[in-house]
């Protein structure tokens, strides 16, 4: 059901639901960007409309709401392992279409790749999604190429229009909330992008043979393996276990999982000194082929959602989309054509 909602009513909706949900939305952190006088847009818990960045696509993804950068799995006490209390509140995530598609990838990794993940699952079943419409394309995104520009699996959509908001409410309780406050009904289709400035083409016959192409060598020097591309990516899910102790003398501590990056040193290190993919070019190849080839071989659809965040964050101006657009050439090279 579609409604035209005033700012005041939307603020009331936020305040009302903040009681039962952590509401995660893009938030502008003024002056916290990488360069002087720039801002950082990241996800944060909000309770008011004014806290939400409605224009710019966030520089970091929403994934920290579901898989925190550092998450306590359990506490070690003398002889026992104790789970932390489950989250008190559910979560409402305000996502653009690319990120809503990314949520499907997180679900597939955490719920369907091997046994379901206890910590992810217990929060996920209490998550609701608000789709933020995209009236215009962001600069670096290529959602249209990846088929992630349109989303329909939301509980509510949100588009700012001339001082008000248009919402398409699929959640019956939320629809009742707006109807009870006299919001006018009207047909609403969330805004979506139909063309991006950046386009990518993944070769139809892309195969693991492309690993032998010379394309990857350029990244040996260009890439500084900082891992930022992984940390901003809404579909990167890797983590490493970390044990933490409060006091050297007490046998008390906790085990956490922290975000890991396949670009950063140590990702593949095994005890005794063995490691794989020492060159940055090999790591770039591993990442690009995961996003554009082997995830699809396993799950049936591409992992990359085309948000373009990795292109924006790279300190070496390496373009992921640019690399993808060289895959066709690279395939021809390895096929000797």
């Amino acid at each position: 059901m579609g409604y035209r909602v005033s700012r005041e009513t939307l603020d009331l909706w936020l305040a009302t639901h903040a009681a039962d949900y952590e509401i995660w939305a893009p938030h502008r952190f003024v002056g916290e960007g990488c360069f002087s006088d720039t801002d950082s847009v990241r996800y944060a818990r909000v309770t008011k409309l004014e806290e939400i960045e409605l224009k710019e696509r966030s520089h970091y993804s929403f994934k920290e709401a579901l898989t925190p950068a550092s998450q306590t799995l359990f506490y070690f006490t003398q002889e026992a392992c104790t789970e932390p209390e489950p989250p008190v509140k559910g979560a409402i995530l305000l996502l653009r279409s690319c990120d809503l598609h990314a949520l499907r990838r997180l679900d597939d990794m955490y719920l369907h790749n091997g046994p379901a993940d206890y910590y992810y699952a217990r929060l996920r079943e209490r998550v609701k999604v608000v789709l933020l419409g995209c009236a215009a394309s962001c600069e670096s995104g290529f959602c249209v190429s990846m088929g992630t520009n349109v989303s329909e699996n939301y509980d509510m959509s949100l588009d700012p229009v001339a001082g008000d908001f248009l919402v398409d409410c699929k959640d019956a309780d939320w629809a009742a909330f707006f109807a009870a406050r006299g919001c006018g009904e009207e047909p609403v289709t969330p805004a979506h992008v139909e063309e991006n400035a950046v386009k990518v083409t993944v070769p139809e016959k892309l195969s693991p043979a492309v690993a032998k192409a010379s394309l990857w060598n350029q990244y040996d020097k260009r890439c500084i393996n900082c891992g930022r591309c992984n940390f901003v990516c809404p579909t990167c899910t890797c983590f490493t276990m970390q044990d933490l102790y409060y006091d050297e003398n007490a046998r008390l501590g906790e085990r956490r999982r922290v975000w890991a990056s396949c670009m950063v040193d140590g990702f593949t290190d095994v005890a005794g000194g063995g490691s794989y993919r020492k060159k940055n070019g090999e790591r770039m190849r591993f990442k690009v082929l995961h996003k554009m080839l082997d995830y699809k071989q396993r799950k049936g659809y591409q992992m990359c959602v085309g948000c373009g965040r990795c292109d924006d964050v790279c300190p070496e101006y390496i373009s992921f989309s640019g690399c993808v657009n060289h895959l066709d050439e690279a395939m021809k090279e390895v096929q000797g054509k």
Partner: protein
Amino acid sequence: MIRNDYIPFPSKVLEVIRHTQIEYTFRMSFDGEVRPGQFFEVSIPKYGEAPISVSGIGPGFVDLTIRRVGKVTNEVFERYVGDSLLLRGPYGNGFDLNEYRGRELVVVAGGTGVSPVRGVIDHFGAHPEERKGMTIITGFKSVNDVLFKDDFKRWRQQMNVVLTLDAGEETPEHRIGLVTKFIPELELEDAASAVAIVVGPPAMMRFSVAALLERGFREENIWVSQERKMCCGLGKCGHCKIGDTYVCLDGPVFNYVKGKTLLD
């Protein structure tokens, strides 16, 4: 309710067998389904977790042969006496003995690579009626690095055993040279239908498989077991991923037809 797979359970150290200065087998209490080639995450609070292959299976216990090479395993060696260790698992596919039943079997293993196949060797050693000829080629660095010395006494009665050392003096029990040296000499009824299992360091596996293929083995009759960094064992942490394959879920045991496609 979904089970919390991350919380380890305490397992009592029942017995410790010292093979070398840095390699012990820990006999751990465990009741449950487990196959050779599977692994457990062994945990020491504060130091972390390490994936360790099952090197033996018996009523109420599993053997874990641990090499003292890292943060966690160092601590295991310091702390085990009269104690228990925290485990999660078993994880991975393990060896499917049915693949080898009724066939001529060759096992090529290097160093701690003997651990994951020890259960397979023991099974077909004790049940010669379940297979045709059997040869194991096992390599260690030196005489001081040989693992499972007592097992070798038994295995010598049950099958052809080549126990080789990288360097040192040849003795009635020890040959000298890398395992690959002894693959061309394998006496087989029919190489084309024989099956082989290869486990060890990456280079050893690569050259051993090449030598087996040269000897006439078919790719689909060779199995390898891979070792990678694994933080979860549950297909989540991503460290063991190779292409579209998760070593912890889909492996660590791979038929070579699949194994040869794995490019890190």
